[in-house]
């Protein structure tokens, strides 16, 4: 058992990741969360569901993680006044998730300290909740202009800079409100939700296979991790294990996604400190990798290559040779470029000390993924909950304690080399001695399953609820950006405005994955 509590009865879920589920009563939510928090655990995800048709009310779902695994709690709520005890004082990162759950379902936290809307802007009006099953989109179209009460910073010489939603570069939309004195940032407040496109509602009623495609498009740069987490959740419900070679290929795809994104980010980080040399060099390497992906697996970003039950692309022996050669080339080139970055005084001057998140603050905020590891938060699902094939790979987690841009660069370099090592290992183990997938067409009725995968940005979680016919009734994809966006607000404090793009890029968080 991951935790014990007198009113908590957990049952183990089948599946690749160690996970337990249990139903609790409202009064037990805070003590259980506190118990997990005191033991060093974190909040992974929080979402709502409309179960009025099945049992006459709504439900709140809270997934926590500690060293034993995932703890998935369900809290049934009344149909009228569906409230639950606030947990944002225990886990500050719950704040935005609770507000999003209200915007989408109308379920709310008692005695919360922030009741502003989060995902809702003007697309639907305030008394309507789009993820309720009886929501009528035509009748509830919001017509009033969007208004959001930003926190005002007052004092002599304080002024505001409003940035976005359309940003100056080729990036996703969001709004940043800076309160500054001179060039120094006193406060940053983020306003997200611009790319909210109804992803969660779209899952409802899709077939399992269509859902896999949608999961792969929650955040395009993390398509492999989402597709795997979705497949893992489905396989957990159906109690199906994919063939060995499919699992090896999944790990290969996941590590290639990590390598591609780290290469791109390292180039961008060079670009943001005016070393355009870094951008051209790293992006040349990234393009070479993407071309190999297209040639060997049929898609540059490996979209739709992981399916429930297995994978949709294999690897021939000649392809293995190509990948071994690529590994050697990347190791050589990245090593050289790392040396150039490290010896470049101008680059290091901008990297070191910029956007620092101290380990203590990171722990309070529940920072996760690569940004967390750069602030000494040693969580990596591949190392802690090594599901096949990672149980045979002994992943070395990269952690660093400085928590600044330089630390996030170091972690990226270390992880890139580790991924190259893993790719070699995977290629040696990978044998095509079975089909690439086992059939998995439909899911059993009224079940719950969860999958978690360490994507390049951090832990990606997908939860699936099925209805009485085994159809997808609620799918919640959770991006690590939920955890890390609030930390960015802290990271930039006291820095100068021109360093914001650099600090922001060093986190490189997803808008689409958070906005859903």
């Amino acid at each position: 058992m991951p935790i014990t509590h007198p009113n908590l009865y957990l049952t183990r879920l089948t599946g690749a990741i160690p996970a337990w589920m249990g139903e609790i009563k409202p009064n037990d939510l805070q003590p259980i969360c506190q118990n997990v928090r005191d033991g060093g655990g974190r909040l992974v995800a929080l979402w709502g569901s409309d179960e009025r048709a099945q049992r006459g009310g709504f439900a709140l779902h809270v997934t926590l993680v500690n060293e034993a695994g995932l703890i998935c709690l369900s809290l049934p709520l009344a149909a009228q006044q569906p409230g639950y005890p606030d947990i944002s004082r225990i886990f500050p990162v719950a704040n935005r998730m609770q507000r999003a759950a209200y915007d989408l379902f109308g379920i709310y936290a008692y005695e919360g300290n922030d009741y502003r809307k989060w995902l809702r802007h003007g697309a639907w009006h305030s008394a309507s909740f789009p993820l309720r099953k009886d929501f009528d989109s035509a009748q509830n179209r919001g017509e009033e202009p969007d208004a959001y009460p930003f926190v005002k910073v007052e004092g002599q010489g304080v002024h505001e800079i409003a940035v976005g939603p359309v940003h100056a570069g080729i990036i996703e939309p969001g709004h940043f409100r800076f309160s500054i004195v001179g060039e120094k940032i006193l406060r940053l407040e983020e306003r997200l939700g611009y790319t909210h496109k109804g992803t969660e509602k779209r899952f409802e009623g899709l077939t399992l296979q269509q859902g896999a495609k949608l999961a792969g498009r929650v955040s395009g740069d993390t398509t492999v991790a989402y597709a795997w987490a979705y497949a893992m959740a489905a396989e957990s419900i159906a109690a199906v294990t994919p063939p060995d070679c499919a699992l090896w290929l999944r790990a290969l795809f996941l590590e290639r996604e990590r390598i591609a994104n780290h290469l791109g980010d390292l180039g961008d980080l060079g670009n943001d400190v005016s070393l355009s040399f870094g951008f051209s060099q790293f992006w040349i390497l990234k393009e070479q990798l993407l071309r190999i992906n297209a040639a060997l697996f049929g898609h540059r970003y490996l979209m739709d290559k992981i399916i429930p039950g297995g994978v949709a692309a294999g690897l021939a022996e000649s392809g293995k040779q190509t990948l071994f050669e690529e590994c050697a080339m990347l190791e050589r080139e990245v090593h050289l470029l790392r040396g150039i970055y490290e010896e470049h005084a101008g680059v290091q001057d901008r990297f070191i000390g910029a956007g620092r998140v101290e380990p203590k603050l990171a722990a309070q905020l529940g920072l996760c993924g690569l940004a967390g590891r750069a602030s000494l938060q040693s969580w990596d699902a591949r190392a802690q909950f090594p599901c096949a094939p990672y149980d045979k790979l002994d992943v070395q987690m990269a952690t660093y304690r400085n928590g600044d841009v330089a630390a996030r660069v170091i972690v990226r370099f270390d992880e890139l080399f580790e991924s190259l090592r893993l790719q070699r290992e995977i290629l040696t183990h990978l044998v095509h001695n079975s089909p690439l997938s086992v059939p998995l067409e439909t899911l059993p009725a009224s079940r719950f399953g969860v999958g978690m995968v360490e994507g390049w940005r951090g832990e990606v979680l997908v939860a699936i609820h099925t209805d009485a016919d085994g159809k997808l009734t609620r799918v919640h994809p959770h991006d690590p950006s939920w955890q890390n966006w609030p930390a960015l607000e802290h990271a930039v404090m006291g820095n100068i405005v021109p360093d914001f793009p650099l600090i922001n890029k060093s986190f490189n968080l997803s808008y689409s994955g958070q906005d859903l």
Partner: protein
Amino acid sequence: MYQLIKQIIKTGIKTESPPLPDEAMRVETQRLQEEILHVFGRALSIRQVDAGSCNACELEIREVNNAYYNIEGLGIKFVASPRHADMLLVTGPVSRHMETALKRTYDATPDPKLVVAIGDCACDGGIFGESYASCGRVANVLPVDVAVSGCPPTPTAILQGILTAISAAK
């Protein structure tokens, strides 16, 4: 500094120049440059707007800046403000939350202007379609000159889309 310069020399020019084997592409890149000179004088400026995409299209649009595609070598550059732009490159199903911002960006772009929709979602709503939160394809919100399909479209397809839009503007 020695290592840096050595690396630049060793890397050489990666840009896929006209005489390379891809014959179709060669003709297009040459034509592209002529078209740009003809329509926009010396350069084409593009403002990219993500109106709600999953960010995969952004990855590929960034790729056209890669040394392999070297869009700036063709006289095309991405600019930070719509007021400096000749063309909007729009991705995503247009989320209802981005509808106003997209229209304002379009209004802020001086005439004559072109709109190129990038990716399946921008072309027809894609997997997200139209919903309480999504207006669907870009053409539901703005007049679109050219639509480039693909999930996401390759950098080559994106370059071709830009060319097609310029040809139509003649």
